[in-house]
C-alpha cells in the first residue's frame, strides 16, 4: 500500500549532518492504522509531509516512497498531482488555520470533487452535503454555505476530514488531528476516524504525541526519536512491553488516570552527541558503546523492530 524507504529530510541548518529525519523506513498495509509517536521535534510531521509531498520547497529530501504501484519522488510535484486529495487524504493539526477564511466551507470541500472527479458546482455541493451528513456536520445544508469563522473548532476539523475523505482515498494521513481540540471533541474525531477506516476501507497514518490517541486507534506504532524510528511494534506489544528505553520513558511519563506518574528523564548532556544512538545522551542505561556506535535496526519479530544495543536484554517492565 505505502512503502517508505530510507527517507531522509534535512535542512542546511539542522543537526550536525543537517538531517532531521534519518533513514526512516516503514510500510503500511491496506486498511491498517499506523501511528507515529514521539516527542516534539522528532520529525513526525516532516515524515508525514514528505509522504504527502508537502515539504516546503527549501527542504532537502531523499529516499523512496511507493504508493500502491506508483513511485513518488520527493521534490517532484507532478508525482503527487493526481494522488493528493484523491487517493491520499490529509488532515492537519490546526483546523482553524487550515481553512481559507474567505470561502464558504462547502465550496472548499467541493473543490476536491470538482478537480478530481469533475463534478459541477451543483453536483459537488450536493455531494458535500451528503459527506457532511455522514460526518455529523449538521445542519449540512446550512453548513456548506457558512464560512470557517462561523464554525467551532470541532466542526472545522470535521470539515477538513470531509475534504480529505470525499474522494474515498485509500490512504488518510492525519497529523495530530486532535491536538487543538477539547477532550470531548477529540473523542468524536477519533470515533469518526475509526469509522472512516472501517467503512471506507482506507489505511490511516496517524501522528500524535498523545499516546492515548495512538493507543486508541493504531494497529501498529512507530516510535520516533530525533528523526529516527527507534522502535516499531504492534500496538499491544508496544504498550505492554516497550523495548527501547525511550519508549519506556515515554510511556512512563504519560499522566494516567489509573496510575501514579513516573519519570526518570535526565537532562541532556551537552557534547555527548556522536555517531551513536540518538537517545544515548538522555538514556538512563547509556553505556560507552551507545555513544560510539549506531545500534542498528534489530528485527525481533515479524511485527517488531527496535534500535537499541541493549533492548533485547533490558527489562521492558522496569
Amino acid at each position: 500500500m505505502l512503502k517508505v524507504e530510507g527517507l531522509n529530510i534535512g535542512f542546511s541548518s539542522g543537526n550536525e549532518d543537517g538531517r532531521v529525519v534519518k533513514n526512516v523506513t516503514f510500510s503500511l498495509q491496506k486498511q491498517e492504522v499506523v501511528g507515529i509517536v514521539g516527542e516534539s521535534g522528532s520529525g513526525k510531521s516532516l515524515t508525514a509531509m514528505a509522504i504527502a509531498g508537502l515539504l516546503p520547497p527549501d527542504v532537502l529530501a531523499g529516499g523512496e516512497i511507493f504508493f500502491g504501484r506508483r513511485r513518488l519522488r520527493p521534490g517532484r510535484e507532478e508525482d503527487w498531482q493526481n494522488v493528493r486529495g484523491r487517493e491520499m487524504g490529509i488532515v492537519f493539526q490546526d483546523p482553524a488555520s487550515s481553512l481559507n477564511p474567505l470561502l464558504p466551507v462547502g465550496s472548499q470541500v467541493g473543490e476536491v470533487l470538482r478537480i478530481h472527479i469533475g463534478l459541477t458546482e451543483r453536483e459537488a455541493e450536493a455531494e458535500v452535503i451528503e459527506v457532511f451528513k455522514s460526518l455529523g456536520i449538521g445542519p449540512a445544508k446550512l453548513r456548506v454555505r457558512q464560512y470557517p469563522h462561523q464554525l467551532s473548532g470541532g466542526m472545522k476539523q470535521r470539515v477538513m476530514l470531509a475534504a480529505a475523505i470525499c474522494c474515498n482515498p485509500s490512504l488518510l494521513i492525519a497529523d495530530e488531528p486532535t491536538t487543538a481540540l477539547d477532550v470531548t471533541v477529540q473523542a468524536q474525531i477519533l470515533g469518526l476516524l475509526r469509522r472512516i477506516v472501517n467503512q471506507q476501507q482506507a489505511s490511516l497514518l496517524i501522528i500524535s504525541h498523545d499516546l492515548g490517541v495512538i493507543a486508541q486507534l493504531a494497529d501498529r506504532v512507530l516510535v520516533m526519536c530525533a528523526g529516527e524510528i527507534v522502535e516499531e511494534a504492534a500496538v499491544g506489544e508496544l504498550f505492554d512491553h516497550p523495548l527501547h528505553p525511550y519508549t519506556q520513558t515515554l510511556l512512563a511519563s504519560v499522566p494516567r488516570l489509573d496510575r501514579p506518574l513516573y519519570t526518570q528523564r535526565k537532562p541532556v548532556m551537552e557534547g555527548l552527541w556522536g555517531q551513536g544512538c540518538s537517545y544515548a545522551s538522555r538514556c538512563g542505561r547509556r553505556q560507552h558503546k551507545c555513544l560510539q556506535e549506531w545500534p542498528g535496526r534489530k528485527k525481533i519479530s515479524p511485527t517488531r523492530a527496535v534500535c537499541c544495543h541493549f533492548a533485547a536484554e533490558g527489562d521492558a517492565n522496569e
Partner: protein
Amino acid sequence: MTLLVLRRLAQTVIVLLGVTVATFFIMHSAPGHPLQANPELRLDPTAVERWLELRDLDQPLPAQYVSWVSRMLRGDFGNSLIYNRPVVELIAERLPATLLLTVSSFLLALATAVVCGIYAAIRQGSLLDRLVGAVSLLGISMPGFWLGMLFIMVFSYRLAWLPGVGMRTPGGEGFLDLVAHMIMPVTVLAVAGFAHYVRYVRGAVLEILEQDFVRAARARGLTQKQILFRHILPNAAVPIVTVAALSIPMLFTGALVAENVFSWPGLGRWIITSTLARDYPVIMTVNMYTAMLVALANFLADVLYMVIDPRLRLNH
C-alpha cells in the same frame, strides 16, 4: 455589516470634521493677510477684503468656524485671490488632468506591482525576485523630479521621441497624442508607486503562502494556479487594498512633483503657483479637497474589506 459600515462612516465624518478644523486652524495661524505678501501680483484689494470678510474676523473663532463650514456645505469655498473666481470652479478645470495622471499611473503601478509581487513571492529567491527587490529599492530612492528631468533630457531633448511638456499638442490633439504626453509623467509617478506597492504585495503573498490553508489546499490536490487564484489572491486582496488606499496621499504628492516637472496642467502645478503667490483660499481648499478625497477613499477601502472578508461581513 450595515452597522459596521455606518460606524465606519461615522468615523469618516469625524475625520472630515477634523480636517475642516485643522484647515481652519492653519488658515487662522497665517500671520497678517495676503495683501502684504506680494505687491508685484497687484492683488485685487476687494478680493482680499472679501476673503477677509469670509473669515468673519470680527466674530469669535467658533462662530467664524461655524459660518465657514456652513458656507462650504453650500458649496461656497470662496474666491481665488488671484483669479477672483470661485475656487471650486478653478479646481474643476484642473482636476481632470490630475485625475488622468494619478489614476492611470496608480492603475499601472498597482497592476504591475501585483503581477511582479506575486511572481516574486512565489518564486522567492529567484532571479526575478531579486530583480524586483532591487528595482523596488532603487525606485523608492529615486527622487521623482530628478527622474523626470533625466527623462526630459533623454527622451524629449536628445532623442526627441516624446513630448516633455504639457498634456496635449495644441492643434494636433488626439488620443495618441495624449498617450504620448502621458508616457513620461505617468512613468515617473508609477515608478515610485510600483516600488512601494511591490514590496507590500510580495510580503503579503509570502505571508499567505505560509498559512496552513494554502498547504491544506495543496493537500487537496489543487494545482499551483488554482491555489493562486482561489486562495492566495483573495486573501492578498486585503493588504493590497490597504496599501493602495493608504498610498493615495503619496499619489498626490507624486503628482505635485510630476506635474511641475512636465508642466502638466493639473492641480499639482497650480497649487505650487498658488502657494508661491500665497493664494490662501486656493491652498486651503485644495488641501481640504484632497484630504477629504483621501478620507473617502479610506472609507471605501474599508467597505471593500467587508465585501472581501466574511469575517467582517458576517460579524454577529
